[in-house]
């Protein structure tokens, strides 16, 4: 059976440190996942349903 301090240590989660930077493993995993999704959004080809129907470089600014 775990003692109260042992439970408290488990509940505190795990953290990673780089100098002044301290981030929980969970938050770090979320940030890494977001970066991965960002890179995938840049490199994964987008399906072209109607290539000829799109407006070519139309800029209304």
């Amino acid at each position, binding site marked *: 059976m775990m003692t109260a301090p042992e439970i408290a240590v488990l509940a505190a989660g795990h953290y990673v440190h780089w100098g002044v930077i301290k981030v929980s493993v969970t938050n770090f995993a979320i940030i890494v996942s977001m970066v991965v999704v960002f890179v995938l*959004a840049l490199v994964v080809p987008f399906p072209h349903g109607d290539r000829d129907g*799109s407006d070519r*470089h139309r800029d209304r600014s």
Partner: protein
Amino acid sequence: MSAAPQVSPAETGGSWTAWLRSKITGLVPAGQALPDRQPAYVASWIYVFGVLTLAALVVVIGSGLALAVGGSAWWHTSSLGHFVNSMHLWSVELFFAVMVIHLWGKFWMAAWRGKRGLTWMTGVVAFVASIGTAFTGYLSQSNFDSQWISAEAKDGINSIGVGAWFNVLNPGQMLLWHVVLLPLVVGVIAVWHVVLVRRHGVVPPLDAGPPERSGG
């Protein structure tokens, strides 16, 4: 920009409804309120994250309305209340994740180009207002988490001198900011942001050549 011509009240015979109608229809160019065509460069997944943010916001507001109907006893005790509470939390998590990816994409394509500075700034303000809305949401859970977060936050809020007006230890005030004031701010700015995007069009990539004018 090819927005519809603006009409003064004198030109509409003094009719304020006709004047207001012309203002509303002139907000975006004809056919651009709900367009069915986009420039070719929009065929990239990075352009999807803005509308994903809007979709998440719709789920956030919908689940928030359900929580408001049921109340805290409902979302703490019933299984359906737990589900809707979790849906509200996770739609917020997704809202922020896709909004930040949208922000990264727009930052690296310098999306403020082409007189889109106000579009960029409304996005910035919407992001900041969303953080405030999420923060007051954490304070409105009515559990030990919200007590802990408010106790941790009070010194920071007091240190910037606004604690007398924005009291994080007052759950009633935080709940009302969360369900009335801040959602109104986020909603209005989000609509303004979308109108500006539709008004100026999606920003072209940095390496795009001069616009090719098409018939569409």
